[in-house]
């Protein structure tokens, strides 16, 4: 067992444990904090996989933006959680069963794929070159400019859409509010 393997096992264990705590923790704020730990563990795994740029993006987008957004919304809707009722549905065991079946099926499938036997990654020729290539490929007409532009338009649509949806109730068209 090498040092890298030890680091992987530690990080992977923390990531998986934090993910479990996200779905099991009864307090929603705690769940969000565990989610941050799990996302940070994934960032460390990205570093282990020599994808440093993605690790930075993971921290900047997931931990900075998404997790903070989730925590803010948890605080905005706080009154609901304090009632102290159960946090899982009546049919939670169906969810657990399907997750277990999916996990078992994935394990069986993985066992049948020959690629799985690779245990040393091939060397990367030039990491800096690769990062530059990533930047160029996103705006290269022959490569990924179409997904890139589609993603930009989708982000813009999501921006406008969330502003529209979350607009204060009083200034909206009247008549559709109930209760």
């Amino acid at each position, binding site marked *: 067992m090498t040092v*890298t*393997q030890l680091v992987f096992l530690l990080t992977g264990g923390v990531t*998986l444990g934090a*993910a479990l705590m*996200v*779905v099991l923790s009864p307090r*929603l704020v705690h769940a969000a904090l565990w*989610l941050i730990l*799990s996302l940070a563990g*994934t960032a460390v795994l*990205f570093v*282990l*996989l*020599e*994808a440093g*740029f*993605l690790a930075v993006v*993971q921290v900047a*987008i*997931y931990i900075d933006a*998404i997790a903070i*957004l*989730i925590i803010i*919304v948890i605080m905005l809707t706080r*009154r*609901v959680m304090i009632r102290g009722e159960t*946090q*899982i*549905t009546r049919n*939670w065991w*169906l*969810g*657990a069963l*399907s*997750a277990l079946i999916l*996990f078992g099926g994935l394990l069986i499938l*993985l066992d049948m794929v020959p*690629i799985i036997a*690779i*245990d040393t*990654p*091939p*060397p*990367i020729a030039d990491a800096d070159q*690769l990062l530059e290539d*990533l930047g160029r*490929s996103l705006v290269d007409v022959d490569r990924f400019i179409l997904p890139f532009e589609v*993603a930009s338009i*989708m982000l813009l*649509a*999501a*921006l406008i*859409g*969330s*502003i529209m*949806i*979350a607009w*204060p*109730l009083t200034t909206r068209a009247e008549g559709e509010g*109930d209760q």
Partner: protein
Amino acid sequence: MIPLSWYLVLAAGIFCVGLYGALARRNALAILMGIELMLNGVNLNLVAFWRYLTPNFITGQVFVLIVLAVAASEAAVGLALIISIYRRRSTVVAEEINMLKW
């Protein structure tokens, strides 16, 4: 070195935990967190395959970036929906949001 299978098993585990969270939690916010976990597991899978199979082609990382953009916009729209529903019905419990259900 670390075998590829370790990454794949870990990613599958994170995905399934997220799936359980998305299916079994009552709170819409917790469901969103489960979905984020699932996307996270997929990202880990993509990066692992990129590193072990085609490390000199950047396609795998581009996929991950697109998935990140999708996750960000999904979180923004989902949270805006939750805030809007909370304003109207004072609840974020998924099973009480049944206006469209007969």
